[in-house]
């Protein structure tokens, strides 16, 4: 058991932005929310997976909706507690632990806020090891663990608990509702035992994010190559460094998609790369072949600072470095690819492992 202090939150925010793989929303507002929660309720106890008892009652928490809306319509604060209470009442038993759904981006901070507010320990493990856009895109889906009953609540005080037939249906129902709720909702779901949590999570998500953030911070302080440091830390591979030539954004089947052309520098001079994004980065290719795809993490960093650059921020002239880092092995299985492989995002090709 350990505590995460305010300095470490800064590092986690940077690291979580990197693990967002182009999406997940800017953790800035999340960081302010986490600080506010800690200031009011005291520090959060973080436990490793091994410390979680087998019979623990574990639930997961996250924000679902548009980060762009959340930076304008800030949270009321207790919607996540409302969702938690609704679920706890439905379960008829006391929840003992909270586990993050998604370490990538803003959602690194939401379970942290809930843990502070309800005084429950937070498990240092998550369901994705990165950011994905939909509720069913989590390891528990592979293990047959249901998202339901799932509670969600908005800033008006509305709340509901759903029983969906599968996790994709949970996604559909909550997604439709959240638009009515003003595009932001807090969800608490995936009730499971401690034993199950050990099987269907990726350990040490906060430690990974925190270490990544400190790698960037230290590299910058030394004026050394932050991109190389991040790549090494993630056991990844740098694909190229370059400059954004063109960004073509469009909305398709309810998703913000972008096709980004990047011209290479240095060793990649003269080559043009195409990055396809749908909230997160999905596929990266050069002129002849696909270099990497989901579920591996395709990450864009500001070449100078090493700070993560999201799909929405990418625009002409941005100097970015693109790297790919391996996802959790379970995502690479047949079952994993059936949930988060390129075909699930509408691409007509198989997974291309990059590392």
């Amino acid at each position, binding site marked *: 058991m350990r505590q995460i202090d305010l300095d470490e939150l800064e590092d986690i925010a940077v690291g979580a932005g990197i693990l967002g793989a182009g*999406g997940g929303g800017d953790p800035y507002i999340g960081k302010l929310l986490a600080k506010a929660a800690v200031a009011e309720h005291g520090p959060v106890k973080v436990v490793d997976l091994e410390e979680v008892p087998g019979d623990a009652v574990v639930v997961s928490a996250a924000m679902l909706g548009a980060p762009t*809306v959340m930076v304008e319509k800030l949270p009321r604060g207790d919607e996540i507690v409302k969702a938690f209470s609704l679920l706890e009442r439905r379960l008829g038993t006391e929840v003992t632990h909270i586990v993050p759904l998604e370490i990538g981006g803003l959602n690194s901070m939401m379970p942290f806020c809930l843990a502070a507010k309800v005084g429950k320990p937070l498990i240092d493990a998550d369901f994705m090891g990165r950011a994905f856009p939909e509720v069913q895109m989590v390891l528990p889906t592979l293990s047959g663990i249901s998202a339901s009953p799932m509670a969600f609540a908005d800033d*008006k005080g509305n709340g509901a608990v759903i029983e969906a037939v599968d996790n994709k249906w949970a996604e559909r129902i909550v997604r439709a509702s959240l638009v009515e709720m003003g595009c932001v909702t807090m969800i608490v779901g995936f009730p499971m035992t401690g034993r199950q949590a050990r099987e269907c999570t990726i350990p040490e998500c906060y430690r990974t994010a925190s270490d990544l953030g400190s790698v960037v911070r230290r590299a910058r302080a030394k004026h050394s190559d932050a991109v190389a440091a991040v790549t090494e830390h993630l056991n990844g591979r740098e694909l190229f460094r370059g400059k954004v*030539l063109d960004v073509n954004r469009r909305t398709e*089947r309810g998703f913000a998609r972008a096709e980004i052309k990047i011209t290479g520098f240095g060793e990649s001079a003269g080559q043009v790369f195409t990055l396809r994004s749908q909230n997160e980065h999905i596929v990266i290719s050069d002129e002849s072949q696909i270099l990497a795809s989901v579920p591996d993490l395709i990450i864009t960093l500001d070449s100078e600072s090493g700070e993560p650059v999201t799909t929405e921020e990418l625009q*002409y002239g941005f100097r970015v470095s693109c790297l790919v880092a391996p996802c959790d092995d379970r995502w690479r299985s047949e079952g994993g690819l059936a949930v988060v492989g390129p075909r699930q995002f509408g691409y007509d090709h198989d997974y291309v492992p990059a590392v």
Partner: protein
Amino acid sequence: MRIGIDVGGTNTDAVAMQAGTVLAEYKHSTTPDISSGIFSALTSILAEAGDPGQVTAVMIGTTHFTNAVAQARDLLPVAAVRLGLPATKELPPLTAWPAALHRAVGDNVYVCSGGHEFDGREIAPLDRDELKRVAEDIAAKRIRAIALTSVFSPTNDEMEHEAAEILKGLVPDAAISLSSEVGRLGLLERENATIINASLADLAVQATEGFRQAIQEAGISAPVYVSQNDGTLMNLEYVERYPVNTFASGPANSMRGAAFLSGSDDCAVVDIGGTTSDIGILQGGFPREAGKAIVSIGGVRTNFRMPDVLSLAIGGGSIVAEGGEHLVGPTSVGYRLAKRALVFGGDTFTATDAAVAMGRADIGRPENVDRVDKALAERALASISTRIADTVDRMKVSAAEIPAVVVGGGGILLPDTLPGLSKLVRPDHFAVANAIGATIAQVSGTVDQLFSIDSHLTRERAVARATEMAAQRAVDAGAAADTVEIVDVEERALAYVPGNALRIRVKAVGSLLDETS
């Protein structure tokens, strides 16, 4: 004839221009009293350029308000009123403010019912009784500046106006700043800028009165405008209410001035001073705005429209030495260049000395650099060229070669050509590029809104509506209607929600009536 005055922290520059020609220029150190400094500039310029009656407009660029905030002085206590409950409660106004500025504006925070959703629905109705209680408290505390921020007010500003009416009725002498007039989407950042604006209310009145007085005493009866951060103008009445829009107008003016002098609407601008080089891009005659749009003012996050400018630690006074990350800088002798550089009899090898040693310039006593390491000087200049060329390349908006305009005293550090640039232009009057930029400025109107797209409002109609609104705002700001053109349209779908929410940004620009009449 127009007169442009740039009141900087160090120097006050002024020019008189007519039909694109500079009639007179003036440079003097800035006086503590803004009004007498402007008066001196005007009389000196008019002595050379002509009769006060010929002046059709006076444009002023100033760092007065920026400096006040940076030093947390002369600021009013502010009542920060937000309309957003039941949402937004978790992060109240003044969240994450640095202590000194927080103290200066006080801790008078009111979070009330109201605000809108992304699609225009109300989060909650405005509660008049609640606002009356807030007004009574503000009046009891004798606070005279109110910052009013409503959720999604850039999309729908009705509630801010309605609440302002109520507050005005009960606190009649208060200066009320509306966030919808100040910033774009991003509640905390827009609210921060609105609070800063409100805190400048007294200073704004003093400054604009000083401007009016100086201009009147100089015998000029023409309208007066002040530059804002996107390189366009606002009138004095608007500055009085929204002084915060003058922040960072300097770089925009300098870039516009440089472009004017070179005659190019699409070019890079390289402003090389004593310590730093500022590099920006002009696109269709206007500075390209920064993408991240998060700008810290005195340690407070805001989301102003700011020119995208990159600064390098390269200037005429940069010290040349082996061992650092670069051969040149970041240390500079700065304003002591005239004492410390070798060519001026000093003991420090500066970038200026390297330029003189390699025959690029004839400054001071060139014989002083006869014995410096020529190979080092050559490598230093090459390193400067590479770093500046790389930065320009990073900033460029298209792959095509563009011209670069070099202004500032450090222009001698660059050769006649750089890779990726069609030519380097070193114009006359480069020392007063700021004042020239102010003089030639136009007026603008911008819209940054979320539109909810459905069968009643197609994408095309939403863009058309935003375009009309922007054009109207430009006319409201003083543009001649037949000169208004749309200079920028950007659409962006919201991530993670089904595709019915579209964020549209449009900017319209027009010429002031005096030019066209």
